[in-house]
């Protein structure tokens, strides 16, 4: 009944202006914070809007659902005292024949910048896509896990006394469309604005670890990126390996000449839930200890890069 009510609330708000997300101060502890974020994004917990009404997100597939997710993420950014910027884009479809038949892809990336504490024009970019791969797909692991991870790293980085580079955190739209439209558009945006990007670290599917070995996969890292991840993975006793996976947001940047890597669970070794892009990709599947371990690795790497 509550979920039916959520649909009506969502439809009601689709006819009005954007709903205001009401958010209390999030939990300070990483595990509790990540549980809350993934829980709210995957419909396990409610998102509170105006006047105490509650929405349960069934997924982040439709424009309306992605709008709610966008507003939710914006609120998290604003709580940290940062500005959240919307990057609206249009992209061509997978080929010109499809373009003749249908409208262009349209979406919105969200990003924020945690400025360096010393003057710098260089950026380290963290990214995760916020859409899901089908109707009624909660997307807890794909990609609530990536979102929770980069938000956690942002929270920790905001407390660093010294940052010699700017940290840009981006939530990509439409990764689940054929051409990873959001990240492709953002890569072009970075190039067009001639931004000095040190590297892009994209996190996708980072919440499943059936064999509990904490193993992490790096897709298409260059030597420098691989070395820094290995350095900290060794300290944290996290097994790590590399792959040539191209089917995520990182490849959009590599294609545009920007150093990038995708960090994920041991996807190509078969350590997957089997529920990707299905209604079964729910909160209950997420291995939060693994996610926290991966978050610690990510933060160690990013902290090092920000201090270089």
């Amino acid at each position, binding site marked *: 009944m509550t979920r039916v009510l959520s649909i009506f609330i969502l439809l009601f708000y689709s006819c009005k202006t954007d709903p205001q997300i009401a958010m209390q101060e999030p939990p300070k502890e990483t595990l509790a914070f990540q549980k809350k974020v993934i829980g709210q994004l995957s419909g396990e917990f409610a998102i509170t809007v105006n006047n105490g009404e509650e929405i349960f997100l069934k997924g982040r597939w439709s424009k309306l659902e992605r709008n709610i997710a966008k507003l939710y993420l914006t609120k998290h950014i604003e709580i940290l005292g940062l500005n959240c910027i919307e990057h609206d884009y249009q992209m061509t479809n997978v080929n010109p024949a499809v*373009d*003749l*038949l249908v*409208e*262009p892809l349209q979406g919105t990336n969200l990003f924020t910048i945690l400025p360096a504490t010393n003057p710098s024009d260089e950026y380290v970019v963290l990214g995760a896509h916020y859409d899901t791969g*089908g109707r009624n797909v909660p997307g807890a692991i794909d990609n609530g896990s990536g979102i929770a991870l980069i938000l956690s790293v942002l929270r920790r980085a905001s407390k660093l006394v010294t940052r010699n580079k700017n940290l840009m955190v981006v939530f990509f739209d439409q990764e*689940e*469309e054929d051409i990873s439209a959001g990240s492709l558009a953002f890569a072009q945006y970075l190039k067009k604005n001639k931004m000095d990007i040190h590297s892009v670290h994209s996190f996708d599917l980072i919440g499943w670890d059936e064999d509990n070995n904490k193993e992490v996969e790096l897709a298409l890292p260059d030597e420098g990126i691989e070395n820094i991840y290995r350095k900290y993975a060794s300290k944290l006793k996290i097994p790590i390996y590399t792959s040539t996976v191209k089917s995520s947001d990182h490849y959009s940047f590599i294609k545009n000449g920007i150093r990038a890597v995708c960090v994920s669970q041991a996807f190509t070794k078969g350590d997957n839930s089997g529920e990707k892009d299905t209604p079964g990709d729910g909160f209950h599947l997420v291995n939060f200890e693994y996610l926290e371990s991966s978050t610690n690795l990510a933060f160690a790497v990013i902290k090092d890069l920000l201090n270089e």
Partner: protein
Amino acid sequence: MNSTIKINSKLLLPITISLMFFLRKGIQYAGIGNYWAICLIGLIIYFMLRGLNNRPKLLKKVVRLWSILILLWAGLRILFTGFHFTTDVFDEYHLSMQFGLLGLALSIMMLALGIMILKNVHYLPLRKKDE
């Protein structure tokens, strides 16, 4: 002497609406780096304008071609919509919306325009104005 061919009102409206629709699409795609649509529509408009300048055979051919292109466009979209409704083949939101109910309404409207143009193309004159 004015040698411009006048188009019957039964043709003028559907041709204008269809050209405007695809011109908008062409401009939109040109703005994001795909020039196929604008080139195609540009060619159609160019030859229509040439045909209007007292070249009735050319005008008739272009208008007939244009109606067939619209019918092909609408027909393909209706076919894909049928696939989508029966097999839910398009997982992605973008294509799912393009071949959903609103997309179907647009396709049917363009189909109707294409039929109107093809049906009324005989209203165009067969000879040049001074013959």
